[in-house]
């Protein structure tokens, strides 16, 4: 009988949308396994699936717990709800909303008391400009600015005397104005009293390319970059 129920539950995960009645497991917490902090173009499918796990009070995975994802800001999911598998995990594919910016995807489950436990997964949707900037940055900048080294692409970070800042380093980069960032990229480090290790790209990239790079640096910043309000002269 129990086996039959289990099969029924597993069937639900695979096929139809689960009904609340089919959910048997109740956890104490919902945690992220993978899929947070991804970056994609606005409106695009996130490359990696979102995987969340429902745990009980002792931290052990809970099977057959109902998980729901909420489509705030136009994000859609395939599927948007379901039951956790035997490993306590639930996976879904997310498509970001059409607006560029920061997204907080909300995943919820019910705990044993029937209260909602939730998890927020931050994701970043890039504007067209930032997408171009990301592409340029991958090609021209990340060899030094990204510490991450792989066999396919070795980072030059360790070879530099003055260490470059990762473009995600919002704590540092958010304090530099757009015009200063543009000056560093265009004229190289010495333009703002930094070493010549940062070469000038003003004769290599177009003005629009450099604007795109600044847009990408702003989009990728962690903590997020807060755009300053433009101050207009009063009439």
């Amino acid at each position, binding site marked *: 009988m129990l086996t039959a129920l289990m099969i029924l539950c597993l069937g639900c995960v695979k096929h139809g949308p689960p009904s609340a009645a089919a959910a048997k497991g109740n956890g104490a917490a919902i945690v992220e396994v993978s899929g947070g902090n991804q970056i994609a173009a606005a*409106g695009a499918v996130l*490359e990696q699936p979102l995987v969340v796990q429902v745990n009980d009070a002792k931290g052990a995975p809970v099977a057959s717990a109902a998980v729901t994802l909420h489509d705030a800001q136009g994000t859609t999911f395939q599927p948007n709800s379901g039951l956790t598998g035997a490993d306590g995990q639930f996976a879904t594919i997310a498509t970001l909303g*059409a607006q560029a910016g920061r997204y907080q995807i909300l995943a919820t489950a019910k705990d044993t008391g029937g209260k909602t436990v939730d998890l927020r997964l931050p994701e970043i949707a890039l504007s067209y400009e930032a997408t171009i900037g990301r592409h340029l940055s991958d090609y021209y900048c990340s060899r030094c600015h990204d510490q991450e080294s792989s066999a396919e692409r070795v980072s*030059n970070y*360790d070879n530099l005397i003055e260490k470059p800042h990762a473009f995600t380093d919002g704590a540092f980069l958010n304090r530099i104005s757009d015009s200063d960032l543009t000056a560093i990229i265009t004229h190289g480090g010495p333009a703002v009293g930094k070493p*010549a290790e940062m*070469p000038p790209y003003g004769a290599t990239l177009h003005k629009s390319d450099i604007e795109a790079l600044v847009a990408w640096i702003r989009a990728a910043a962690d903590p997020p970059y807060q755009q300053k309000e*433009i101050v207009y002269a009063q009439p």
Partner: protein
Amino acid sequence: MRKFLIKLRQTLFGDSARAFGTLGIVMLLSMAVVPLRDQLREWSPYQNQYLKMIGGRADAVSLRRRFESGIHQIYNPKLGVVDRCTTCHTGMQEASLRNVSLQPLNAHPPIPHRLQDFGCVICHRGQGAATSVEEAHHSSRASEQPMLPARYVESSCGQCHLDRSPGTPSLNTGRNLLASYGCVRCHVVTLPDGAKITPTDDPPELTHIAEKTTREWVYGWLKSPQSYSATATMPNYQFKDDELRDISAFLVPQSPTPASAPPLAPAPPDAATLQAGASLYGESFCASCHAVQNAAGLMVGGNVGPELTRIGMKAKPAWLAKWIGNPKVYDPGTEMPHYRFDEKQIALITGFLGSKTDSDWMSGIHLDAPTNQQIARGKQLVSASGCTSCHVIDGLPKSENFAPELTVVGSLPLVKALFKPGMDHSLPAYIEAKIREPRSLGPGLKMPQFSLSPAQVQALTTALLAQTDRARTLPPSMRVAGVYPTPYEPAGEAGRLMRDLNCFTCHAINGHGGDMAPDLTWEGTSVQRVWLFKFMKNPNTLRPALIRRMPKFNLDDHEANVITDYLMTVYQTPAFDRDETVTHADKAEAENGRQLFYSKYACQSCHIVDPKQDKGYIGPTLTAVGSRMNAAWIFHWLKGPAALRARTLEPNWSMSDTDARELTAFLVAQKGQSAKMGNKP
């Protein structure tokens, strides 16, 4: 009641003056309704909301001055655009509203085109002329299209853009996938400029399959290609077991057995031989093209050739030895170069590859000798499944146009599409479902199941949605031309050698070839002959950070001389003379150059001149650049690197002639160790 009506008629229309007065009042009232009706339009609240929002802003005066109430329209007869979307999306063209995240009032994010030139529906589709929310966005009448979900918006770029613009990553990926997954071998896809997408995959001919592999392997492979090789692009045809039995029976014994019996499989190599084989595999840089899945499940290596994780299960040792000896004998069009391995080396590599097996993979497959009936059924199945669209198979004609043409699939009328229950009733949803699970849309469909990630499915859908009627009717002047490979081929003995070694798999020359290694169009201006000859004989590492490197082809002196002479003579830039004197290389100049190298330009960040102190390894090592490159090339390179090699990582320094000359003087003095040995060809 009747009396009242008569009286009313008397009062209003009793005589001509009364009638005229009454009609006048009615006219006045109805004229007042017209502006009132505008107030009741669906777009009116949005315009009021917009005025309210900008009212509180510091730039309210400017914004209000540019705002007009009523219907807004972008009209461009050349493109057939009549778009009234900006009636509600009021702030679209106001750059200062980019931070506002309030639809429909915010500004459009920055794109390279002006809204007034292109309008909205060219990119977003939907009905531009409509002035109600429902009709403009969601119209699903047979002749009309609803708006495109944002994730496919790049497909609209593809109506004009045939170049691989960096702004359309998903479209580019999709078009690449159409070519590399063999989609265009069954479906014809013609781009708006009339060029057919040509396949870039290389499905093997099956004429000699019995020499290469076993019937059991073919059975297991067809059952699930991805279980054999996770990176396989071959789709799964979801054949049943008896179908697999018959197809493998038809495919494998059909090949004529070679006249001379193949040599017996060599004894399994001992550990030392295996190790030597692994070393040779590494030294020959097989991994530049072939991937192997490591213990952690990660793919290590390139994707030019097939994955070799389980190659020992597939390739018969005798065939493997023959293939490694000279792949061109078996397949003249292969991208695999003809390494000049000797017998011992061939045995080492064959032994090493033969050891790459997986005891689980074929364990469940046991096939009895086939009956003629089974073979006949196999032939029928192979023919009906369209196998000959990709593979050459003896006894079967190549199938042309096996599947429907997809040239205008982006404008497919929905009445022609099949939907399953519960599916979103739209063209993007239909195309996506067709790609993701082709056979789920109905019984008897032939399209096989591909292994694609969600992002790949999105990319393919984007590329197909770009194939619209509109793309073909747009003025040709709007088209951004595609970059197509040229048919360039080098001539003579050198040309034959370069094809034998497949130089063009990695290097491009005159617009033909790959981008894995440097473009060689002007190599003859760049390098010195002595160095090039030595490099041909034994390619050493110029860029230590690269994993993909030039393999050692074991060329003899004659071959190396032929290629070197050809490269030195033919591939020269017309922009300047290789032997131009740019520096007298005196000590003072070189010393200034050293200062510039280490301080002003900080070249050591990316290059190494002195291995003891310099560490940069993004650019090539320059320890012996003076015995490798010509002074004129170095000088002109420093003046403008992208002019000599497009897309080089070296930035343009806008360097003065003096700086470039002094740096050149410093660099040509770097002769390295090899120069002292005085090697001559």
